[in-house]
């Protein structure tokens, strides 16, 4: 089970992230109820469901922001259920947020450099002296960030404070910061929310490139069904905290339970 990126591609990919029987309650509300998902290495897995279905709560548990009340979460066979968010990040799980969480006063480049913080080794003293290791480290990290800037076509915005950027671009910078961590698994919480069609297409392209060119496993929460069905390998449907269906996009689309969850069973209201 010791699977690291860069090793031999295997025909049937191993499970990289496993969520087993996880549950979470907030007071009397059951947000997530006994959900199990296996995310295979190198795939794009989407989690969909109506508002309040527990998608973001699930992602928060994987990234360590919430502790599950029951169940177990494992990354490459290693139990991460009780770990702190920073420990999970250091193991190679990066995420973006539904509501953008960037440092608005910092430039695009600085936000990306911050994304690499967990990878930096130099202490305060070394950094103040800026000599030897600290200098070499800075150069190496800057080069890695420049690669991401190139990858996400942010060259012209490198020195711009992120607060001044358009919404779609800030989302892209957030993806960049998550990539700066050099993750094995990328958790994306509505990366296309609030975007126009052009921006959505760009973002979908980037997510596919992240997956195909860099071999990063992607877990995606998204409301735009067109995008989800286009780019996902596997779709998981949640409704009121429970998993009601999963499978390849086409199967999920045809599943009566999914249609019922989205449109209601008797009277047609609600929407995706």
């Amino acid at each position, binding site marked *: 089970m010791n699977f690291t990126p860069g090793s031999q591609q295997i025909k049937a990919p191993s499970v990289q992230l496993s969520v087993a029987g996880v549950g979470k309650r907030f007071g009397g509300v059951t947000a997530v109820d006994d959900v199990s998902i296996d995310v295979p290495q190198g795939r794009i897995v989407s989690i969909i469901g109506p508002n309040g279905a527990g998608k973001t709560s699930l992602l928060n548990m994987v990234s360590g922001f919430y502790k599950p009340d029951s169940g177990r979460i494992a990354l490459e066979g290693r139990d991460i259920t009780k770990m702190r968010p920073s420990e999970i990040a250091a193991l190679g799980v990066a995420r973006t947020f539904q509501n953008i969480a960037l440092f608005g006063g910092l430039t695009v480049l600085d936000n990306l450099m911050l994304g690499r913080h967990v990878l930096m080794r130099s202490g305060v003293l070394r950094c103040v002296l800026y000599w030897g290791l600290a200098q070499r480290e800075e150069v190496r990290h800057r080069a890695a960030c420049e690669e991401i800037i190139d990858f996400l076509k942010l060259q*012209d915005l490198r020195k711009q404070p992120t607060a001044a950027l358009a919404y779609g671009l800030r989302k892209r910078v957030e993806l960049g910061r998550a990539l700066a961590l050099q993750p094995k698994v990328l958790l994306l919480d509505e990366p296309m929310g609030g975007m126009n069609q052009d921006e959505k297409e760009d973002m979908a392209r980037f997510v596919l490139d992240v997956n195909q*060119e860099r071999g990063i496993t992607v877990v995606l929460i998204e409301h735009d069904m067109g995008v989800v069905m286009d780019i996902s390998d596997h779709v998981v449907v949640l409704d009121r905290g429970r998993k009601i269906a999963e499978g390849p996009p086409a199967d999920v689309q045809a599943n009566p339970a999914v249609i019922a969850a989205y449109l209601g069973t008797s009277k047609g209201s609600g929407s995706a």
Partner: protein
Amino acid sequence: MSLVADPATNTLPKLLARNMKAFGRQPGMREKDRGIWQPYSWRECYAHVRDFALGLAAAGFKRGDKLSVLGDNRPRLYWAQLAAQALGGMAVPLYQDSIARELAFVLDHAEVSIVVAEDQEQVDKVLSLAGQLKNLHLIVYEDPLGMSAYSNDILKSIADVEQAGRAFGQKHPGYFERELEQGGAQDVAMISYTSGTTGQSKGVLLSHANMIATSESFASVESVKRGDNWLCYLPMGWVGDSIFSLSTSLVVAATCNCPESPETAQRDLRELGPSALLGPPRIWESMLTALQVKAADASPLKRNVYEYFRRLAERRELLKGDGKSIPRSMRFGYRLGEYLVYGPVRDQLGLRNARWCLTGGAPLGADTFRFFRSFGVNLKQIYGATEASALVCLQDNNEADPNTVGRTLPGTNVRIGERGEVQVKGPGVFLGYYKQDAATRDAVTPDGWLKTGDAGLVDPRGHLAIIDRAKDVGKLADGTPFAPQFAENKLKYSPFIREAVAFGDQHPFVAAMISIDMSTVGKWAEQNGLPYTSYMDLARKPEVANLVVEEVAKINATLPDATRIRRIVLLNKELDADDAEITRTRKVRRAFVAEKYAPVIAALYDGARETQLTMDITYEDGRKSQLTSTMLVYDITPAGPAGPGRLAA
């Protein structure tokens, strides 16, 4: 001995070999990549060209074959052209923003066998055509991003080709040097496709001798020096880029600098501070617009200081133009302004180190021209044609004048033919059009002068002045001569007007179609609390119409009464090269526009208040649809700003 006459330097790749031997370690090119200017020495440039050429040879590229490059300015795309030329092939550079249909014409007509594309986007365009192009057998890409999912036999990366080249070189030692040796000055170096203001574009055959001789005499006139820095940001498909970036830098061993991306070009320009800058009028106009917007946004103190010194510089420039002496107080003020305004502005624009700046390709408005000169930018006009290796005339440092294009290059001669047409003879004049002998015969007089199609005259100083395209110059109904470009350039000086098309030939008065500048008008609308959604919405606002009408009235005040613009219509979209309304170098395709907008033009002259137009719209992804829209016609009253145009409703 001139370079062309010496068999060791009579082709562009031979010049590269000379530079490699003479200045091996000095930078031949730089590319901004990963946020840093990465230098390539002449030696590295040569090694890349050699390996790539051998890779092309391994792929079956032979003498006389054609190679196209498609993308933004990248060292590897320049090297690919030199590699093809080293093997006796021809380079066919393409416009990077061409749509697939335009590419199909050029690639098919030029029988291109290998395309070197910058990235996935460009590869997709070429791949979509691969089926219809029987000569195309290899597509080489520079940027591997997004390419891993492609499994097509005709696709290879540049690195693959260079690797294959090194293997081929080991098996065939001396192959590259022998091929290089065989090249001659009269070999075709490139086929440059004209932008085609008049119908389908034509392939202009330029020899190594054409390009090298033109660059050599240009370098001698402008004293271009070894180690000078150029910024290579103009479209590679334009012949000017091949002459100035590729040929001239090889001739004098100047350094070409490729910006990181088109979006960063302005910032890269400032970082680099090149020794000189060449740009079409569009570039200078947009620089000026950006500057005007910034000045208007500045704090009141800064704005007033800027405005004061701008006026002072303008008055000084006018006095200088009239040959009058400049009062002492003005001299002092100008020197002060140099510290406070002119120097910092030049620095902001990236022109601090520029010894001269050139504008060409189309006439630049006299006001824009004067502005840059008054701020200490040595802006000069040049005149050229693709068929004359991009350069015929340029101005001496002391003779810059917005109304002429200067003197002919040494060795080149100009005469005025019938109907005032400018005719050229010289070392830069092309070999002919590719596979279009009839067109070649039409373009050259029996005694060997190139007919440029431009109407012009030679002034008493010996400067050439261009009036307009010879066939566009017309007469108003009362016989007043009318040159549409003259009116259009006046209009385009307004920061709110992006594009204008003037009419008047055989008509009672001058009228114009105007497309507004979305960025400046949008900003104006925001400042005036005017909400809008789209370009079309903005262009239809009565307040915007008033704004433009006032601008036109201001411009009219500077025109003779007979040629004043009486009526205008605001277009609800920008003129777009994708819709074939303007060329890729932003020249209006008059005949096409006149046909497409016939109902609008009719409305300009029949007194109608509004007009309907059905247009085929091409979306960026190539989809098409039809759109019918109503456009309003406005009268320009002679009173000027006091009498804004009336609305139709």
